């Protein structure tokens, strides 16, 4: 086949057809993958909530509350078993990580004790700061109530054993958990034991 000549009309027509076909096929793929993408997002959140709370039967992601605090958004997920509240999972954050933003999911039982904590997103140094996701570090928070357990590293007079050589990360972690607890307290005053 001979090469097409580069006349203006030829060029415009070609580019137009190419972008049209591209746009149309992408629109199609977008529609097809839209459902699965949303499902993947929900599964991701649900998995994190499952890790930080005891078993529940509802799908907490469906009715989440959001709250604005310190320049970013916290999300509150309520986990229920039939009609009983199993606990609240709060998606919290701190901007003070060693390499910026850290996002955590903190699970509170109805009495306010921490059940477990999961790390959702971070850029901390592998092998140092990223140890915050290990059970060894998380363990000390489990079953503690922030009223009696001072959410600060021991160096700052609190009760938290910092990760060796990663005080900044540990401090940031506590900051995020504390922020989640502040929100937890607000949620309690909002809706007194329904």
């Amino acid at each position, binding site marked *: 086949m001979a090469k097409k000549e580069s006349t203006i009309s030829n060029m415009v027509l070609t580019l137009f057809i190419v*972008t049209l076909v*591209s*746009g149309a096929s*992408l*629109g199609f793929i*977008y529609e097809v993958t839209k459902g699965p993408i949303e499902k993947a997002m929900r599964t991701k959140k649900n998995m994190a909530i499952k890790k930080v709370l005891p078993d529940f039967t509802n799908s907490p992601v469906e009715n989440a509350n959001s709250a604005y605090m310190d320049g970013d958004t916290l999300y509150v997920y309520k986990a229920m078993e039939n009609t009983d509240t199993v606990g609240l999972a709060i998606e919290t954050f701190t901007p003070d990580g*060693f*390499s*910026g933003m850290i996002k955590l999911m903190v699970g509170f039982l109805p009495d306010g004790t921490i059940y477990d904590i999961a790390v959702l997103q971070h850029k901390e*140094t592998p092998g140092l700061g990223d140890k915050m996701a290990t059970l060894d570090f998380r363990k000390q928070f489990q079953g503690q109530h922030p009223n009696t357990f001072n959410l600060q590293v021991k160096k700052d007079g609190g009760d938290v054993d910092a990760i060796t050589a990663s005080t*900044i990360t540990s401090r940031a972690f506590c900051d995020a958990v504390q922020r989640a607890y502040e929100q937890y307290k607000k949620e309690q005053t909002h809706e007194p034991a329904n």
Partner: protein
Amino acid sequence: MDYILIIIGAVFVNNIVLAQFLGICPFIGVSNKVETAIGMTGAVTFVLVLATMVTYLLQHYVLVPFGIGFMQTVTFILVIASLVQLVEIILKKISPALYQALGIFLPLITTNCAVLGVAILAVQKDLNLTESVVYAAANAIGFGLALLLFSGIREQLDLMDVPKPMRGVPAAFVVAGLLAMAFMGFAGIV
């Protein structure tokens, strides 16, 4: 967000080349001589700032309002490719001297992932227009800094007696690794 934080963060802490691995091709390709490194930096700065500005406007006034966010990659790369062409044509007309200096680098910029990368990052980080421009400029400085340091080292490296299989690119990579290690010292200052 504080502009100073954006600048220090982009230039030193998360250096675009040495920590984020963007723009490696020109980093290895044109860092043989300090002179070409300066030329490349100039061209990249120019396109990077312009492209980030235009893609910001497109993202917030076209893609988002019309709900076609999935066209982001296609739109952004087309914008960058046309901007590069445009800059080439304009430079040729108004400043032949500058064109002489930057001309050969311009076509290479379309496939420089630093430009598209920064444009996408600025959108992902939810920066506003001024912040985006500052962020783009800071990244361009970071790119220039890494490139200049590296080309300086490579000029010296050429005079060294390097084992044969290591000559050229492999040695350059190892040096880049050491440079990246030095830049890790900046971690945590922001």
